[in-house]
Structure formats: C-alpha cells, structure tokens
C-alpha cells in the first residue's frame, strides 16, 4: 500500500510546499537509488545465464566479450528439451514439489488454526516449538534422517533411499514448520469476533476453518504455498544425499551430476537448465502475486 501511495504522490510533488516535500523528495531519491542497486544486483546473474545459454560451447570458451552474443543459437535449449534425461528430472521435480506443497498445506493450515485459535494447554509453547524446529538447518538434519531411513529399511524391508518419493518424507521437515508459522501469523491477524460470529452462527471448528479462515487468510495461504513450492523445487542437499540413480534425480541435482563430467563443465547447457528450472517458480509468482497483494481482510471489521 505504501509504495503505491509514493508512486501516486510522485508527479504532483514537483510543486514545492515547504520542507516536508523536500524531505520527501530526498527520501524518494534514496529509495530509488537503493532499489536500482538492488535490481541490478539481483538481475545480473539471470541475465548472464540467459546470454550464456544462447551461446555455443565454442563461443563460451572463446576470449570475446562475455556480455554479448555474437552467434546466437538455440541448440542448448533444443538438446535439453529433447533429452529424456532432462525431462525426467523436470517431471520428478514437478511431482515432488506439487505433492510436498499439498502435504504441507494439509498439515500446516489445520495446525496453525489449532495453535492460533483453539486455546489449549501448551498451545503457546507448541507454537514456539514449531518455529524452533525450522531453525535446525538441513545440513544438520540429513545425517540422522539418512540413518533413520536406513534403519527403517532394515526393519521393514521397504527401501526408500534412492527413490524420488523419499523426498516427499524429507521436504515437509523444512516446509511444515515455516508454513505453520506463517499461517499462525495470518490467522492471528483475523479479528477474534469473526470466529465468534461463526461459532454463534452455528459453525463447527472445521467449518470455521474452511468457510471463514481459509478464504480470509488466502494471501497468507498463497505466501505459504509459494514458500513451500520454492523450497521443494530448489532443495539441493537432500536429493543429493538421498538419490543417486539418474532416473530418480530432481532437477537441481540432475543438472549438476549429468552436465558436469569430471572437470568438463557444459556451461551452455548448465545455464539453460538453470533458466528452465527457474521458470516454474517465476510463473507461479506471476500468477499468484495479485492475490498475494490484495488485502482480503478489508471490510471485516471497522478498519
């Protein structure tokens, strides 16, 4: 909202009204300066990736200007998109991400509702506990997890390691705590009278959640979905550790293990793969951004 107001006020502020407008002008200049700096900082890597992906291997290794494409070619794209291996990685990644997002939402939304609204003994401690769980890094977790699955396999004979679907058990350890935490925050911002009104109207807890809380906290739900999707799409350590066969790999690990052969880096295809890999999250952001920004709680109470 605030950036919107600044944009609108911008042009009319050329008229000088006094020190307030001068302060404002300076504040705007500094914001634009840092925003530009930030934009350059975050846009240079993808632009470099795009440039490199359009070059042939020969041009990449030639000592020409690295920021310009002299002989643009789509060969990297054609090769990757026609290779069964790459499509397999893409498919594995997509399956993992979609299923993990679904699992995460099915767990964290009811959990957040319970923790934020159904005051029960120890709910506050549990809520903090959920967040603390998120603070344990995956680099610490992967060893005990690996051991766990190995023991599980010994006991039951069910081998999950080196299957793509082992990731469905692993990623929620990262996504569920954080998404629950986000949703607790969103649910907490919904006025208490809204669920009281629903309860008096005759709604059960479940109906209050599905018919009031989820629609009202949709922006939060979308934020959590985006987070869960990004984490499961981009996760590197777990698939690197838990999957090794080429047909079980997901994209980030697949690109690295198949396109780097010994000390030979196939830069053109690595960059192309990375760009294609970045496309789905980008598209999802673009589609969900409008919902994300729209403040749906407006009008519920006095406001």
């Amino acid at each position, binding site marked *: 909202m605030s950036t919107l107001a600044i944009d609108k006020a911008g042009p009319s502020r050329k008229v000088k009204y006094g020190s307030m407008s001068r302060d404002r002008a300076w504040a705007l200049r500094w914001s634009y300066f840092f925003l530009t700096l930030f934009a350059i900082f975050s846009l240079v890597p993808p632009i470099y990736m795009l440039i490199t992906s359009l070059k042939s291997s020969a041009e990449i290794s030639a000592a020409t200007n690295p920021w310009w494409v002299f002989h643009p070619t789509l060969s990297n794209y054609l090769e990757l998109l026609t290779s069964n291996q790459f499509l397999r990685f893409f498919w594995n990644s997509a399956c993992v991400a979609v299923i993990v997002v679904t699992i995460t939402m099915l767990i964290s939304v009811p959990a957040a509702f319970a923790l934020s609204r159904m005051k029960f003994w120890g709910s506050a401690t549990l809520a903090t506990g959920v967040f603390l769980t998120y603070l344990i890094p995956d680099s610490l977790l992967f060893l005990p997890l690996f051991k766990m699955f190995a023991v599980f396999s010994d006991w039951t004979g069910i081998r999950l390691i080196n299957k793509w679907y082992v990731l469905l058990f692993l990623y929620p350890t990262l996504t569920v705590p954080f998404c629950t935490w986000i949703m607790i925050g969103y649910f907490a911002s919904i*006025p208490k*009278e*809204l669920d*009281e*009104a*629903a*309860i*008096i*109207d*005759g*709604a059960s807890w479940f*109906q209050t959640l599905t*018919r*009031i809380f989820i*629609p*009202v906290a*949709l922006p939060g739900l979308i934020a959590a979905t985006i987070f869960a999707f990004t984490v499961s799409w981009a996760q590197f350590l777990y698939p690197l550790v838990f999957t090794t066969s080429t047909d079980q790999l997901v994209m980030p690990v697949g690109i690295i293990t198949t396109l780097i052969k010994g000390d030979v880096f196939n830069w053109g295809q690595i960059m192309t793969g990375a760009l294609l890999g970045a496309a789905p999250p980008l598209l999802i952001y673009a589609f969900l951004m409008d919902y994300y920004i729209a403040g*749906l*709680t*407006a*009008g*519920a*109470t*006095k*406001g």
Partner: protein
Amino acid sequence: MAEVSLREVVKRYDEVEAVRGIDLDIADHEFVVLVGPSGCGKSTTLRMIAGLEDITGGDIAIGGDVVNDVPPKDRDIAMVFQNYALYPHMTVAENMSFGLRLKHYPKAEIKSRVAEAARMLDITDLIDRKPKQLSGGQRQRVAMGRAIVRNPKVFLFDEPLSNLDAKLRVQMRIEIKKVHQKVRTTTVYVTHDQVEAMTLADRVVVMNKGRIEQIGTPNELYHHPATRFVAGFIGSPAMNFVPCRLEEAGGKLNVRVTDRLAFALPPARAARYANAPRNEKLLLGIRPEHLSEANGHAAPGVENFETVLDVTEPMGMETLVYFTLQGTQVCGRVNPSAGARDGAPLRLAVDLNNMHLLNEGTGAVL
C-alpha cells in the same frame, strides 16, 4: 422468544474476579441494557450468556433451560459485535444467510428471510455488495440483519454503536428501537454510553466492578438512584455532589453547604430525611438541570442563591455554567438569555424537590 435468567453468576480469570455473583431476570420480549464503565464486567456477562466465555460459578438459563454447558450454536442466540465481524469474503446476502445455510434451511426460505430482513433494515440495494464496499452504518445494519434472519430466542448486542460517529449513532439507536418494536425478541444490550442505555432500554442494569449496582427503568434510575455510582453515572452532565450537613433549626430541616449558605428542605424531603443523621458529613446530590437561573416568583422547594461563575459553555438551547461550592466544581443549566458570562456573578435557583442526600462514606443514597 424466551426469558433469560442469571443466578449467582461468577467469572474469574486466574486471580481477577470479573463478575462477582450477579442475579438478573430478563422477561420475554424485554429490552435490557447492561451499562457501566469499562472493566465493570458487562461485556463478560454478555459473552457468558452467549456461551463465548465459560462461567466460573452460578447458572444461566435461557427459556427456562440451564445452558451452562450448552455450546453457543445450540443456545439459539444471535449476537451483534462492536466491530461488526462481517465475513469479508461474502456478500451482504451471504453474510446474512450464513447461519441458515449451515443449518441447511431450504433455499427459498433463506431467500425470503434475507429479503424480509433487508427490507426491514433498508439494505435491499446493498444485498450483493461485499462488506468493504459499505459504510460503517451500513455494515452495522448488515450485522443486525445477520442476527434477525436467524429468528433467535435472544439478541445480544455488544456495544454495537461504539464505532459509529455521533450523528450515525443517534440514527442507528432509533433504528435498533424500531427493529425491536417489530420483532419483539428478548434483547440484552451492552454499552458504556448511558444515553444509549436510557433511550433504548425497558430496564437498565447498571454495573460496577463486577457487581450490579441497580436495576430499574430509565426513569427509576434517573429519579431514584440507589447509590452514588448510579447517581453520577446516569444523566449528562453528571449529578453534582456537594459536601453538606443536615441541621435542625426552629423545627425545620436545613441542608447546610457553607457557613453562609443553607437551604430549607421542602416538606416532602424533610419527611424523608427525618431520621437521617444530623451534623454528619453528607453529600448533596443535585442534577445540573435542577440548578437554573433564578426568576422572580419562587416556587415551593426552590431556593435562590448568589454565585460567581468560573466558566460558561453555551450549547445553543441552554448554557452550562460551572462554579465552585465547598471546593467542588458544580454544574448548572441556565437559559441562554440569563446573561451568564465567564467570571460574572449570577443568581441561581436550586430545585430541592429533586435533591438527593448521600452518605459520603458508603455512597448510599438516603
């Protein structure tokens, strides 16, 4: 339709006792207002009737059935909240029909009930709008509509007008009264605004510090307050309390305010205070409307006296005058043409037919 009764109802939060054993009987069709300062336990009481708060002790009965352990949805009540609590993602019609839809009423009946309530509240044109497209007053109408369509046994209002501006509040007050005249549902209404309480209620329950100070019709509370709290709370500007003593002189009862100022009590009041303690510290309670400019012909029980005004507040139809008596600020209401000016002397008349005497220590009205 149902009566509501509270027996020895107590609410305790850890160490704090928010409601300290109250008894209240609300008749069928009655409009009862719980009024009091913030923290007096009025909202807690309402929420206990609604079932949104557990009760620590005592019994609450709706329509003769004790509902202590009955969940809110089975108590057949409807509640209107201070901040409206409309569902922001639903249209006005959906907001109003939510409760009926949850109970799987036939669609045709839902439609006719919503249309009827919308017509009653004059919001038929807004039926397809979302709450954020409505003004505060319209939102409050929708919140009332949501309560009306359910056709419950009891309406509960929790400070429904506090978020509206002064003008709209007056308008909605009348609206609420009209709705009650039509639907005649038993209503419990909570407010901190004594004007709302006086104008809306069949009976007013004045609460203070978790207890009921007095229950009565608006007129009873105004004319016969039981305690200093009620006397000071009901009426605006508030009743003046001036330190005084009762003294007997020549077989007559006088109320002495200062060495030079004493008023002779009219016979009715003298009889009432015949057994009151003499020469003890008391308070003279007199409402501003019973302190006006002196005019030529003295009525029985009206005594004149001279004072110097501190401040005057012209209100248009009247002027409020403030002066000091025995170290307390006293307010009177005079005619705008009485010539009241800041710092100027003025001859005032006090109507002792409407005076009260209070025990300074206990606050009880004698």
